[in-house]
């Protein structure tokens, strides 16, 4: 028996070493990924501690493609970075914030992009591969992602396990690393202006979608309040921004007003500014969008200029006081 157990242990040691080495190799390759939607670039910047921004922009894809940090930088003379995470609600937007604070200096201003989906919570881990290179033994990622369908205990704590079933075939994660031009970044300071024309997503939605109500997730509401309290205690100014949304696409959600009221309540309760651009002039003009929820490059530039002017005016006003 003793001999058997010793042999098993000696058999497993090289295997464990091999697992660690393979994990290191795949992780390193995966971190070089620069393909759509460029989430890994943002995570890399966070963990390399090379952002240290003054203005942090948080939110979903509607933050990512709507708010150009370069325009903010030029206008406000402050460093800006866009942390928008595609397809995710506040739960994982908050993870970006937590991880950013852990590895970088805290920002002075947070522009928090909110919308009807921010306080809902999806079941699946959209674009799950983005977490793979950073999640091993990472308590923040474990806490933020374990309530989703996606990873299991062994994925979080054992080397290589999280890559199991993701290596061979057409969906291989190793293919993500075969970018012809690996040095070319997909996002710029976390932002990408979408040079796209209006597509038929809205027309399709009109045909296939009925009206629906957003299921506001109470844990997300609590987390959002916690986030606002934390920012307040750290003296970080937060501005909630409902970025433009094409007017014809706003009729699907039946309880939009209720969600907006939650943001209004946050604004009053925590003394933060809430800017609602959902009925702004930009929202009336289809030329600024590529679908009902997303501005194209032209729209995002115009919107960011408007936003930066507003913030600048506000800052000047505060100075005068």
């Amino acid at each position, binding site marked *: 028996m003793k001999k*058997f157990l010793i042999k098993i242990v000696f058999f497993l040691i090289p*295997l464990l070493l*091999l697992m660690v080495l393979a994990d290191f190799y795949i992780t390193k390759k995966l971190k070089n990924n620069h393909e759509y939607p460029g989430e890994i670039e943002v995570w890399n910047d966070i963990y390399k501690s090379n952002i240290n921004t003054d203005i942090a922009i948080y939110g979903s894809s509607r933050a990512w493609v709507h708010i150009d940090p370069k325009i903010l930088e030029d206008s406000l003379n402050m460093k800006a970075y866009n942390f928008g995470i595609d397809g995710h609600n506040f739960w994982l937007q908050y993870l970006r914030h937590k991880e950013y604070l852990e590895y970088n200096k805290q920002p002075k201003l947070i522009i928090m992009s909110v919308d009807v989906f921010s306080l809902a919570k999806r079941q699946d881990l959209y674009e799950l591969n983005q977490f793979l290179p950073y999640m091993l033994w990472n308590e923040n990622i474990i806490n933020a992602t374990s309530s989703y369908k996606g990873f299991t205990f*062994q994925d979080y704590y054992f080397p290589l396990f999280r890559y199991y*079933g993701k290596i061979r075939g*057409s969906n291989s994660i190793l293919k993500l690393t075969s970018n012809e031009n690996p040095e070319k970044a997909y996002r710029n300071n976390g932002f990408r202006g979408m040079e796209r024309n209006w597509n038929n997503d809205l027309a399709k939605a009109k045909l296939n979608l009925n009206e629906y109500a957003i299921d506001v997730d109470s844990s997300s509401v609590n987390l959002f309040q916690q986030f606002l309290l934390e920012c307040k205690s750290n003296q970080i100014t937060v501005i909630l921004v409902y970025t433009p949304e094409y007017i014809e696409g706003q009729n699907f959600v039946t309880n939009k007003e209720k969600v907006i009221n939650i943001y209004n309540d946050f604004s009053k309760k925590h003394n933060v500014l809430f800017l609602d651009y959902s009925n702004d002039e930009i929202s009336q003009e289809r030329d600024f969008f590529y679908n009902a929820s997303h501005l194209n490059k032209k729209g995002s530039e115009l919107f960011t200029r408007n936003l930066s002017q507003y913030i600048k005016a506000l800052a000047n006003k505060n100075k005068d006081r």
Partner: protein
Amino acid sequence: MLFNSIDFAIFLPIVFLLYWFVVNKNLRLQNCLIVLASYVFYGWWDWRFLSLIFFSTIIDYSIGIGLSNEKNPSKRKILLWISVLVNLGFLGFFKYYNFFLDNFISAFSFFGTEINANSLNIILPVGISFYTFQTLSYTIDVYKQKLNPTKDFIAFSAFVSFFPQLVAGPIERASNLLPQFYRKRNFDYSKAVDGMRQILWGLFKKIVIADNCAEYADIIFNNSSEYSGSTLVLGALFFTFQIYGDFSGYSDIAIGTSRLFGFDLKQNFNFPYFSRDIAEFWRRWHISLSTWFRDYLYIPLGGSRGGTWNKIRNVFIIFLVSGFWHGANWTFIFWGALNALYFLPVFITNNNRNNLNTVAQGKYLPSIKELLLMFLTFGLTVFAWIFFRANNINHAFNYISDIFSSSLFTFPIYENDDFVKPLFILIFIFLVIEWLGREQQYALAQMELKWRKPFRYLLYYTIIISIFWFGGKQEQFIYFQF
């Protein structure tokens, strides 16, 4: 709990260490641990159905005792029938209730009478067909006085619920497995190492061969009307290797796991795809089920005695019941009937026992004749698997008619094609290893005698890496649904 899950990878060493280090001095405690571990193993899937196993255990244990005390033949027969009815009653309710109901409704509707009856939303308890047959064999053997009934309830519970083979076999006979629970088990180093090796080979078959073939077989079978005849042939081939890798892989893991605990289970697969005729195939495929039907159905029906018509009838009965055992669907019944049709010519002409030895015994390569016979048998088997895999009987016939179209002679086209070529290579390597090891219990058995240590270890590591590298979705074992 699935053998190919992390849960089992944690569960097995815990039970192993408790078994050999904590309760090793007391046989009864070892058996208790096996029962407890088996119930945890089964309850991991759905604890509610543990009551079924427990009830089945109590019934057959009590009836076994009753049969030993009872001398009156008619009362003994009543006791036997109670066991048969209770066990088959559970099986019939959980597995066949909706099938019979739906078919009765259809039959009455055909004759113009409409019946309103709702089918029930019944969950099929995993492995019910396996443990039902195992306990039934005990009662029948006790009734026929081939076996002394046990008075050790714990040993009997362990025999019924023994976790390595509880949910998908091999279906063990009480005469083989039960006495092993009475004997003191001593740790046997070479047996344990051999068990580990067999587990590894079983995992390779399941994860690398079966799960990857499943992905393509599913795509092709589920969208069969969109594919050419040649692609459909490929789909049938993928399923052929899927079902073999899946089921024989499970059996290898079950046998290997049992060996770690000092038990010897029966060989369940003996390289069936190297058979030279269909009779040989059925001596090598799912051996524990085939021999069960032979001993408890075929022989009581008269077996090969009597006139030709009796023989034909018995062959058809055994294949149809075997098909129906697999599931409540006409596809399985057709599959059974087709195999009966394959089997009859060799049986009636008394050629069913021509190939009792291993093909090309002691040689590296088969003769041309053997090769042709193997191809023919394999081809017939692949064709029959279409019925087994099809969603329903119409799907099976449409699939077959789509094969025999002009597109049969075109180049196969399939989606996700970047892994198909590596998969062919993997299947080829798998077949070569199986061929080289075909005279053994499983392909890698006796490696210790034939291979030097560095090469052995290289192969083990290669298998483990390939399991990780080529591992696909974690698929459930096909035979769980039976």
